[in-house]
């Protein structure tokens, strides 16, 4: 088919539309995931940017292989792989995966802060101490609102395995926070 052929042009137009839609719909998801994963705004911004550039390069193939399923898990998987590369390249994990609490508190309302800032901070610290796959599953579930099937696709697991992972992650986290409450009391 010659370049500029009508059906080729409309294919590109459709691809462009889908990329723009993907970007608009999931910029916040990718940024939130990146922030909770790497723990600081600077790296989260870089990771978000790189994720969309990768997505842009491979969108056509992803659309072909997704067979109409949502692309969010694919996008988050790109961010997940890039974050893993970031740690590998730096040959270290950040000393604290989450920036100081002043920055973390920024997205919360004044009401939240008054009611339970300390408690939220303890929960975030406990999330940070979970094994990587459990921490990621919780970020996807609670920060991004992904369901089990989406989380399974993002982590490359079966639906059942993702279900068990989330269940165990919440249980472990609740126990840790409970222990801390007991210690403090």
């Amino acid at each position, binding site marked *: 088919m010659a370049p500029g052929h009508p059906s080729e042009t409309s294919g590109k137009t459709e691809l462009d539309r889908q*990329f723009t839609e993907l970007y608009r719909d999931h*910029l916040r998801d990718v940024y939130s995931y990146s922030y909770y994963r790497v723990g600081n705004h600077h790296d989260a911004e870089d990771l978000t940017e790189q994720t969309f550039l990768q997505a842009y390069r491979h969108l056509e193939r992803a659309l072909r292989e997704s067979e109409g399923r949502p692309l969010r898990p694919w996008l988050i998987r790109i961010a997940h792989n890039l974050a893993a590369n970031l740690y590998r390249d730096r040959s270290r994990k950040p000393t604290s995966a989450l920036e100081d609490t002043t920055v973390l508190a920024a997205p919360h309302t004044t009401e939240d802060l008054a009611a339970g800032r300390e408690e939220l901070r303890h*929960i975030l610290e406990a999330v940070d101490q979970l094994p990587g796959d459990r921490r990621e599953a919780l970020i996807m579930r609670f920060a991004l609102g992904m369901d089990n099937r989406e989380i399974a696709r993002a982590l490359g697991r079966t639906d059942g395995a993702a279900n068990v992972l989330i269940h165990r992650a*919440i249980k472990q986290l609740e126990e840790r926070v409970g222990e801390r409450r007991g210690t403090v009391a």
Partner: protein
Amino acid sequence: MSAGSPDFEALLRQALRPLEPPAELAARLETTLSELTELAQDELDAWELGAMRDPRNWVRPVAAAVIGGTAGSALLALRIRRTHRRRHAASSDLLDLAGRTLSDAAGEARRIFERRG
């Protein structure tokens, strides 16, 4: 399946609240896409026609054309969105806003295609 108490899950939801990306990030991303378009165009511009006689050289310019085409339209949509607030502030009513949007879209498309020569 729920593992924790409803109260605990509510706290977890509050702690892991979605974060709004900074406005500068969106602007930077859109600029990067724009630069990507220009890179693809440069690749095509720099290509000697003579080299095209050898089929082994066809892959790169074709890839550049695909990247350039995709980024151009995506960029157009993003730019129009970015200028929407400015138009909205300057418009006297909805009809005026629609007219300004169409005019801006045509202008952006013309600029992108002119750059591609």
